């Protein structure tokens, strides 16, 4: 039975049942929950109540799912402004866990969970792992950071809830990670995609053939990544790369995940109601149109979020997925509206640079975009780490590679960028997330 857990209709993991609800039943459930969460924040959270009052609405105005558009948006700044506990809808005595963002600039963002919230989080993570075809018997190495960051504990509870064996290795010490993968017979790994590329690099240096390991599934998230990156990971290992999406403000990892068809990420919309809005007009977009993903937590108790602006660019897909799940999909998120760089008037997303670099044979995309201004003109420099695979001892070959990369960027994004080859490990990585952009234009 376990092999069939990810198949529709027959023997899926019991926790995955809501993935396959008949659509009318799902919508009715969502409406019930939307009414309830609107009531909860109106009664319990001053900020939400004041904003609703300013719009002359009460929870009674929510009569259909479309009425969600009546509700005000919530922004990341709202969490900062009410730091630390201003958006809590539960008394502290009911709160069993606090998490916080790393907060490199100013105050961190705090998120809270009741016992029930942790249970919901665990259940969506179980559904996420099940969607990747994982089950009891799998050995999951959890390389997301443990601690205030939601990634580590979120994945941990889900993997345990699934009945899998968890290796709670957290981030860092890559050599030890590889040793454990080998010695424990790890079958799946959770980490950021850029950290997995680093693991692949290290395996080569340590002369470990990653294909000799039983590792077959990678659950990659916590940073935007591209289809090209998936191709590269899958070409260099036997790992099937799954994109997982989540954010602490909503719950942590486990908001949406791919199924084996890899055609978008199924949103666990019985808990997280997705909307796509037009960035210019802030109006809801019809399904299928690109815009910013906005999420409302339908069941969160400690800290519900109403129409939270994720700044992630995506679109909602309603076409039926062959996996049989009825929950809608969002398209994979490769860019964020606040990631967007405007260079000499041209819009540019870091992911476009990544895609351009990946089209050139032999490069692994450890890259960084450095923006500066020279005589009033924006300058773009892309640092690319040299790896043993593409290092040549001929000056000409390296120069040719540099030009190829530079041309590829110009062809893809229409911007002339200076490519500079740098020594490995030059580009700073924090919590496994690579810092992709350094903007010195206003320095």
């Amino acid at each position, binding site marked *: 039975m376990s092999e069939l857990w990810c198949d529709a209709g027959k023997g899926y993991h019991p926790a995955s049942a809501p993935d396959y609800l008949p659509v009318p039943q799902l919508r009715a459930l969502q409406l019930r929950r939307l009414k309830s969460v609107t009531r909860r924040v109106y009664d319990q959270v001053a900020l939400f109540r004041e904003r609703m009052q300013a719009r002359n609405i009460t929870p009674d105005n929510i009569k259909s799912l479309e009425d969600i558009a009546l509700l005000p948006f919530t922004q990341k700044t709202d969490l900062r402004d009410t730091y630390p506990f201003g958006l809590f809808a539960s008394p502290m005595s009911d709160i069993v866990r606090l998490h916080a963002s790393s907060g490199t600039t100013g105050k961190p963002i705090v998120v809270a969970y009741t016992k029930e919230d942790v249970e919901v989080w665990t259940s969506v993570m179980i559904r996420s792992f099940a969607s990747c075809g994982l089950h009891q018997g799998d050995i999951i190495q959890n390389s997301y950071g443990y601690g205030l960051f939601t990634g580590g504990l979120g994945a941990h509870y889900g993997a345990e809830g699934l009945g899998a064996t968890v290796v709670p290795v957290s981030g860092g010490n890559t050599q030890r990670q590889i040793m454990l993968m080998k010695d424990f017979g790890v079958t799946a790994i959770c980490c950021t995609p850029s950290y997995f590329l680093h693991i692949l690099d290290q395996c080569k*240096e340590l002369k470990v053939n990653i294909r000799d390991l039983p590792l077959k599934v990678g659950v990659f998230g916590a940073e935007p990544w591209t289809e090209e990156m998936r191709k590269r990971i899958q070409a260099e290992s036997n790992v099937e790369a799954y994109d997982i999406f989540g954010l602490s403000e909503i719950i942590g990892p486990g908001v949406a995940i791919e199924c084996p068809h890899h055609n978008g990420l199924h949103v666990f919309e019985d808990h997280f109601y997705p909307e796509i809005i037009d960035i210019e007009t802030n109006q809801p977009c019809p399904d299928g149109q690109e815009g910013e993903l906005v999420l409302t937590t339908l069941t969160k108790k400690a800290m519900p979020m109403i129409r939270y602006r994720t700044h992630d660019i995506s679109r909602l897909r309603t076409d039926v997925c062959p996996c049989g799940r009825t929950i809608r999909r969002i398209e994979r998120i490769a860019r964020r509206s606040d990631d967007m760089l405007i260079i000499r008037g041209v819009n540019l997303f870091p992911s476009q640079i990544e895609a351009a670099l990946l089209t050139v044979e032999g490069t692994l995309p450890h890259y960084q975009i450095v923006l500066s201004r020279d005589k009033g003109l924006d300058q773009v420099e892309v640092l690319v780490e*040299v*790896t*043993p695979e593409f*290092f*040549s*001892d*001929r*000056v000409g070959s*390296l*120069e040719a590679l*540099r030009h190829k990369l530079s041309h590829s960027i110009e062809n893809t994004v229409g911007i002339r960028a200076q490519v*500079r*080859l*740098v*020594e*490995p*490990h*030059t580009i700073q990585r924090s919590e496994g997330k690579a810092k992709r952009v350094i903007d010195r234009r206003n320095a």
Partner: protein
Amino acid sequence: MKLKQLSLFLENKPGTLTAPCRLLHQAGLNILTLSLADTNEFGILRLVLRDWEKAKKVLEQGGCVVKVTEVVAIEVDDRPGGLAQILEAVEKAQLNVEYMYAFTLKKENKGMLVFRFDNPDEAIAALKQRHVNIVDSVELFDRLEC
């Protein structure tokens, strides 16, 4: 007949040349000869060492990008025209020289050059036919150490 050479990627910034040399020093490895190719953006340091395998390991562990290349050591008469004679043989054999540099060593009026060819095996065969003296690594290290 071929000689193993290590090539290292270096960024063009202060201190990058010191780091690998320090690593070799700490491991007690002596550089027999070297050459440095540089552009505005980056450099390539090419090294010949006796224990190149150990050197490669030490450098890689120290975070360097290292590539092993096969080069050819050729004996050359230390007199005017000595190099021209070798290059004529190279030209006649229609071999393409990627780059070359010299050893500082000199023995009985013979100098020593390092050549990087497209295809070292082909080059060795062609040059031997033309009576150019190719020095193998055993002999080379013997000469360097006496």
